[in-house]
C-alpha cells in the first residue's frame, strides 16, 4: 500500500507542469499587449480618464465659476476666455469643464443602474427559465417598446425634475438620481437580453452541474459561479452604452427636462438660449459640442476595444 502511494506521488512529480515565477513587468506587458495592438482603445481610455478627471477636478481646473457673468457678452475666444463667452458673459470653457460633471455623473450612474438591473434580471431569468423567464421577458418587452428618450421623459415627469445645485460631482450624482434612474430604465432590457443569452449557455456547462451536485445554493451558483463567467459581457455592455446614456442626458437637457436652467450641462448649453447665437458666435457651441462628441467617441472606442479583448471569439483579432 505504501509503495503504491509513493509510486503515485512520483508519477505526479514527474508529470506535473513546470510553474515559473512571472515578474510583475511581464504580467503588465501581457495585460497591455492586446491594448497596444489597438491604439483607438488607448485613445478611448485616455478620453474617458480625462472626462472623469475633469468632472472630479472641475472646481480646480475651471478658470471661472460656471454661472456668474465674468466677461462681456459674446466675447470671441481670447487670452482671458479661451473659448470666449456666451451672450450672458459666462465663460464657455468653464461651463464646458463643469458640464462634464453632469454628463459623467448621470452617464456613470444611469449606466450602472441599467447594467446592474439588466444583469440581475438576465441571470435570474436565464437561470430559472420557465414561467419566471416568460414573465420577466414580456414585462421587459413592454418597457422596451417605449423609445428610450420617451421613457426617460415620462419617468422624469413622474418623479419630478432634479434639484441640483452642488459643484461636487458626488453631491451632484445624488441630486441627479431621478434623472439617472429615468435614463437607466431604457437600457435594462438590452443588457438583460445579452446577459440572459450568456447565462443560458453557461448554465449547461459542467462547472454549474458540479456546483449543483456539490449542493451549492441557487443564489451561490448564480452569483458566485455564473456571474464571474458572464462578467466580460457586463463590462463590455457598460462601456458600450455609457456613450449612449451621455447622449440621452444631453438630449433630455436640450429638450428642457434635464438639469435645471443655468446648470452647466453640455446638452443644455447646446439648446435654447445659446442656439440663437450659433451663427453669430459659433464659439458658444464649440466647447460643449466638442466635449460631448469626444467623450461619446472615447467611450465607444473603449467599449469596442474591451469587447475585442474580452470576447473569446474576437480574441486575437485586430
Amino acid at each position, binding site marked *: 500500500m505504501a509503495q503504491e502511494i509513493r509510486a503515485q506521488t512520483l508519477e505526479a512529480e514527474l508529470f506535473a507542469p513546470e510553474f515559473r515565477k512571472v515578474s510583475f513587468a511581464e504580467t503588465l506587458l501581457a495585460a497591455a499587449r492586446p491594448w497596444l495592438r489597438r491604439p483607438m482603445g488607448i485613445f478611448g481610455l485616455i478620453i474617458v480618464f480625462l472626462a472623469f478627471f475633469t468632472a472630479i477636478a472641475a472646481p480646480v481646473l475651471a478658470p471661472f465659476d460656471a*454661472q*456668474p*457673468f465674468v466677461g462681456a*457678452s459674446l466675447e470671441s475666444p481670447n487670452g482671458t476666455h479661451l473659448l470666449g463667452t456666451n*451672450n*450672458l*458673459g459666462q465663460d464657455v470653457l468653464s461651463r464646458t469643464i463643469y458640464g462634464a460633471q453632469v454628463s459623467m455623473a448621470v452617464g456613470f450612474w444611469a449606466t450602472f443602474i441599467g447594467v446592474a438591473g439588466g444583469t440581475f434580471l438576465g441571470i435570474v431569468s436565464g437561470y430559472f427559465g420557465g414561467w419566471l423567464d416568460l414573465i420577466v421577458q414580456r414585462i421587459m418587452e413592454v418597457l422596451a417598446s417605449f423609445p428610450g428618450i420617451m421613457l426617460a421623459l415620462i419617468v422624469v415627469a413622474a418623479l419630478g*425634475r432634479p*434639484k441640483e*445645485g452642488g459643484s461636487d460631482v458626488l453631491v451632484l450624482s445624488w441630486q441627479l438620481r431621478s434623472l439617472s434612474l429615468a435614463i437607466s430604465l431604457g437600457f435594462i432590457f438590452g443588457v438583460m437580453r445579452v446577459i440572459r443569452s450568456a447565462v443560458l449557455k453557461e448554465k449547461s456547462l459542467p462547472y454549474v452541474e458540479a456546483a449543483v451536485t456539490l449542493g451549492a445554493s441557487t443564489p451561490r451558483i448564480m452569483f458566485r459561479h455564473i456571474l464571474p463567467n458572464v462578467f466580460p459581457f457586463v463590462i463590455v455592455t457598460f462601456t458600450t452604452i455609457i456613450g449612449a446614456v451621455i447622449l440621452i442626458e444631453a438630449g433630455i437637457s436640450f429638450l*428642457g427636462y434635464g438639469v*435645471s*436652467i*443655468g446648470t452647466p450641462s453640455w446638452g443644455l448649453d447646446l439648446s*435654447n*438660449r445659446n*442656439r*440663437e*447665437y450659433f*451663427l*453669430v458666435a459659433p464659439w458658444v457651441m464649440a466647447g460643449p459640442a466638442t466635449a460631448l462628441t469626444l467623450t461619446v467617441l472615447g467611450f465607444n472606442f473603449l467599449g469596442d476595444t474591451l469587447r475585442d479583448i474580452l470576447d473569446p471569439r474576437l480574441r486575437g483579432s485586430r
Partner: protein
Amino acid sequence: MNSYWDRFTRSRVSRRRLLAGGAALSLAGAGLAVVGCGGDGGGGESGGAQTGSTGGAAGEPQTGGTYGAHYTTSDTLNILTNASEYAAFGGQYVYDHLITTRTNENAPYVLEAAQSLEQPDEITLTFKLRQGMKFHPFPPVNGREVTAEDVVKTQEFVTPQANIENNFQKNFLDKATAPDKYTVVYKLKEPRAYLFDSRILGHPGPQAIIPYETFDKLASERQVGSGPFMLDQWVISTRYHYVRNPEYHGRGKKGLPYRDATDVFVLTDAAALEAAFRSEQIHFWTNPTAGQYDELAQSLGSMAKKIEYLSLSPFTWNMNMTKAPFTDQRFRQAMYRATNRQQFIDLVWRGKAVKPTGILSVAMKPYQLDAKDTDAYFKHDPAEAKQLLSAMNWDSNKEIELFFISPNSTTEQAAEVFRQQAAAVGIKFRIVSFGLAEALPRTQRNEYEMFIGGHPGYDTPSVPMRHNHSNPIHQFAVSGLKDPEMDALIEKAEKTTNFEENVKIVKQAQLELIKRYTSYYNIVTAYARQFLNSKIENFEIEPSNTAMHRADMWFRKA
C-alpha cells in the same frame, strides 16, 4: 358724455378712416405710431391710426390664398378655459364678437357683429346686431341665424364658471337682456373706466358669441361660431385648418374674408419657425428672439417686412404675497435694489428694450410717471440690498423657486440674469419652468413663490394694476400687495370714467405702489419684433392682440 372714452364717442374714427390712416404708414411707421400710443391724446385722424396697416396701395384686394400663423400651444378647443384658444385659435377665427379692441384711447374698438353701439348713460350699453348673420353650417347649430338671445345666453353661461376670465360678467355686468331679436343691452352695476379693454368687452373668450346648443361640448366637439372662418380640420396642439365662411357679415362689406383659409400651427422651436416662415407655411412670425432678429432680417431680405414697436406687454417679476419672505417690505426692497434693469436690457434684449418708470408698459404713454419720481426706488444698489437682508436676518441658504412659462428662451435668459443678480446679494433662486397649460392652474392654486416673464399686451391699466390688488381677478392670479389702501385706490381708478381724472389716479396708484415696493416689478418694456411676409396687404397690427383674424387682409399675387 364725460366718459373714459368720451373723445372717441364724440368724434368716432370710422374703421375705414382708421385703416386709411394706417395705410399711409409704413410698417415701421405703424410701429412708431404704436409707440406713440395715444401720446398726444388729442384724437383726430393721425392719433386714431395706432393700429397699423401694411397699406392698400397695391390696388384692389385680391382673393384666395391660405394665411399661416403660429402659436405655442393649445390643449383643448374650449375658448373659455383655454387662454391659447381664445388668444390665437378659435377665439380669433371661428367665433364672432360684438366688438374687437383697438389700442387707442380715442378709437378703442371696431364694431364686428354689432352694427352700432350706444351708451345712453354710463351704465348702459346698447348693441344693435347686424341682421342676417348665420352660424356655421355644422350640427347641432346647422347654420341658424345669430340673434341677440345668443349673446345674452353666452353671458349667462359664462357668469358662474370657475377659473375663466369672466371678470366682466361676475363683477361689472348687472344684467344682459335682449329686448328684441337684434338688440342686446348690457346693464352695468356701476360706471367702469376700462370697458373696451381687450380683457373686458374686447375679450376674445368670454365675449365670443357662442351658440347655446354647444355649451356642453366646447372642449370636445368642433367649434361652431359665426366668425370669418370655419374650423375644418384640426389636430389638437399641432395644426388647425380654418376655411372661409362665405356667410360672414364682413362688417357690412361683401366678399370678406378675402383669403380662402387660415392655418394655425403649434410651433415653438426657433428653427422650425424659421423654416415655416421661409417656406411660406406661416406668414407672420411673432417674436423671433433678440439674438437672431437683426441677422434674420438681413438674410430674409425682401421676403419679409420687419416690424418693431414698443410692446404693451410688461415684463415683470412677481412675488407671491401670501408667503414669506415676500410679505416683508425689507425683502421686497432688497429685491428692488438687487435688480439691475440695464443688465437685462443689455444681455437679454441686446439693447432693444427700455426701462419703465412705473407699473405700466412704456407704450402706455399717458400713464407714464416722471422718472425723477421713481428713479430712487428702482435704484440698483447691491450693498443696500445686503444691508436690508442682514437687518431681517435673511438665511442665505434658503432657496426660492423662480418660475417662468416655457418654452421661451428670452425669459429663460432673463431668469438666469435675475438669479445672478439675486445671488450677488445673497438670495438663492432655483429656476423652474412650466408650460402655459400647467402654469396658469399653478398660480391659481397658489403653487409658486416668484414668477418672471412677459405678460400679454395690455391696452389699458386694467389688468396690470389689478395684479397689484389683493384680488387680481384675472386668470394669471399672481397675488398683489394685499394692501387695503392700494386696493381702494386701484378700485377707484377702475370706476373713474373721466380720462384725465383716471390717468391722475392711476399715476398716483403707481407711485404709491412703488413706494411700498410692490410685489409686481416692471423690469423692462421690450420692443415687439415681428416678420411679415411681403406678399400680404392690408395687414393690421394690433399690439394688444397680434393674432387677430384680419378678415380684410389679402395676398398680393405676383
